[in-house]
């Protein structure tokens, strides 16, 4: 359960996020939309600890995580993908995913040098979990490829698989459909829905591709100039004149 209360973030003179609040629980999909520069990515950056919030709190399952270091936030169960893909070059697809699982592996620094039984078991376990993550996004057959040689859409899926391996309770997806064609977008929306259906985590989704965000979100938050201008179901939001004016424009 994620509770974000009234977070603010300024950059010099620019107010990127103002008074943003949100509550999400397992199995839900929340969409965040808004014009470019409205502060959507900044919200994700604050939640995941890349930026420190100027004000406000982020509470996950009763723990205040607002000021934790990034990797601790990630270990508490906040996983994300990036607007501009950020994969680990030089590591295979499988190892990219395993890196995300590694902080949950229990063997100690001793196991780094000696192939203890614990290490073998844990590595085996990690391998299986990560293959399962890859399988969930349909990437298991690329496990040994190098990510930089994969087409864009597959890289996006790999980022999601990597986030899944963090064993998240909140999954933050920043424009996962950017660069996908309509067919791929519909595959992706099936994927996100199926992930959410597992009820393991809540999904927060930033997206400009309305066909995706409008069809799968239960609740949509519309941001403009850092402020939330509307919250509601896709239908409510679509009909909201302020949203039409600021973001959607009239259908051609």
């Amino acid at each position: 359960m994620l509770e974000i209360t009234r977070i603010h973030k300024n950059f010099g003179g620019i107010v990127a996020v103002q008074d943003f609040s949100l509550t999400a629980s397992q199995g839900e999909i929340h969409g965040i939309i808004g014009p470019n520069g409205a502060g959507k990515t900044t919200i994700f950056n604050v939640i995941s600890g890349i930026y420190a919030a100027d004000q406000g709190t982020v509470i996950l399952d009763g723990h205040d995580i607002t000021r934790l270091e990034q990797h601790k936030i990630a270990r508490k169960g906040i996983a994300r993908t990036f607007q501009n893909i950020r994969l680990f070059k030089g590591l295979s697809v499988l190892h990219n995913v395993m890196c995300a699982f590694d902080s949950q592996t229990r063997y100690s620094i001793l196991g780094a040098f000696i192939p203890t039984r614990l290490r073998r078991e844990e590595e085996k376990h990690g391998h299986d979990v990560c293959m399962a993550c890859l399988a969930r996004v349909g990437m298991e057959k690329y496990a040994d490829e190098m990510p930089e040689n994969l087409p864009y859409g597959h890289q996006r899926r790999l980022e999601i698989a990597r986030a899944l391996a963090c064993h998240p309770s909140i999954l933050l997806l920043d424009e996962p459909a950017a660069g996908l064609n309509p067919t791929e977008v519909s595959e992706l929306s099936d994927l996100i829905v199926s992930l959410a259906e597992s009820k393991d985590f809540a999904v927060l989704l930033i997206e400009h591709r309305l066909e995706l965000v409008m069809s799968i979100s239960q609740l949509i938050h519309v941001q403009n100039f850092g402020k939330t201008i509307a919250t509601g179901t896709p239908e409510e939001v679509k009909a909201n004149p302020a949203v039409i004016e600021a973001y959607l424009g009239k259908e051609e």
Partner: protein
Amino acid sequence: MAMFSVEDLSVHYGYVTALKNVSLTAERGQIVSIIGSNGAGKTSLLRTISGLVKPVHGRITFMDKALPHQAHKIVGLGIVHVPEGRGTFSGLTIQDNLLVGGYRFRGGQLHQDLVEQYELFPLLKHRKTQFAGTLSGGEQQMLAISRGLMSKPKILLLDEPSLGLAPLVVNQVYDVIRRIRDSDITIILVEQNARKALSICDKAYVLENGEIRATGTGGELLSSDLVKKAYLGQ
């Protein structure tokens, strides 16, 4: 002969074949769309035209002359590429990004152009001293297009210009694209958003696995089964 033509172009990255015998043509003031799924080779095609990638074989001609091999000379001819993923210079301010875009020109002319761009995208004017790297995704996209226009293109290569843009802005960008076309500039447009791309273009190519699978006017392709199934999600 066409004003701009690509003949029999092939590109490899190591063992990966990105393009196989691709040919296409474009005329003055046309919008030519290229659609295709991920990894089809669209970006590779644009990168080859703009000289960033060397083809294994093939010929690219502009006004009946073969293109030079170096990227900066190709820009000199007026073939300008707005790259995928924006590629703004993160540590330069918006204004410097635009001025670098107009690298080929100097003096008063340059500042005149700058003013024009600021009129086209007022947001950029308000933020002209902000570092490009801290702009939001969509803001960077606007900057990238605007920067491309600073080079005064005769042919503009746009790689997924609507990527990450809000719907309203997508419409604006397409308006801009139309306006650019109307000023007699040829546009080669690579898009995932096939419906939009096909509805605006004069001619379109479908690229699959590095090969041209189909070609026709936008309208023809919009109604073709192949395109409907694979690219429009119908």
